[in-house]
């Protein structure tokens, strides 16, 4: 169906607020990734889901970051008590990850600005 979608596209949060970022992957894609892209940098891996299982969360920068995908489709990345260093674009990508179908398809990202 449609591509990967993310919402909101832009989010401004005051330092200390909690935020929730949503990702709708391509229908049927079992694998879902979150990346953080700081200004002028390449994306950096945060966490990986296969269906509803979070198989790798080694990239989450602190315990303020939490991700879930309870039904193996939509995923939410939550950041508690936001800090200025959390300002970045958060990218979601999904993939089928089988055979020759291993390409990751990216969403447009959520630009988070913490003031």
């Amino acid at each position, binding site marked *: 169906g449609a591509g990967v979608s993310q919402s909101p596209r832009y989010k401004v949060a005051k330092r200390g607020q909690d935020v929730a970022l949503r990702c709708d992957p391509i229908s049927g894609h079992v694998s879902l990734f979150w990346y953080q892209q700081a200004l002028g*940098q390449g994306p*950096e891996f945060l966490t990986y889901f296969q269906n509803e299982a979070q198989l790798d969360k080694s990239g989450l920068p602190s315990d303020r970051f939490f991700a879930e995908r309870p039904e193996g489709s939509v995923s939410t990345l939550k950041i508690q008590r936001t800090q200025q260093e959390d300002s970045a674009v958060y990218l979601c*990508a999904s993939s089928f990850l089988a055979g020759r179908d*291993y390409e990751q398809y990216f969403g447009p990202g959520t630009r988070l600005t913490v003031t």
Partner: protein
Amino acid sequence: AQTVTQSQPEMSVQEAETVTLSCTYDTSENNYYLFWYKQPPSRQMILVIRQEAYKQQNATENRFSVNFQKAAKSFSLKISDSQLGDTAMYFCAFMKALYSGAGSYQLTFGKGTKLSVIP
């Protein structure tokens, strides 16, 4: 752990000319995939071209081709007949091959090269 290095932060090319973007990587994996992604200003990341490490033949996609040198761990992107729409950030990325053992399949990106095509 894998690392990806793009040593050219910015490049420019005249419209219709050819440009080559450089990428080197470091890994202990024998099987893996390499990618070039394009990120236009304020638009989302899209795949330009991919290469499977076990294939010796260099990948091509229309005006885009790669020079993959496995022993040297080099993976450069050549854009021929550059067009204004090629203006974007270009990221080189690495992913370990499917079913190649422990670890997940995240992409490891370089810092990117900002390409400007000049009319």
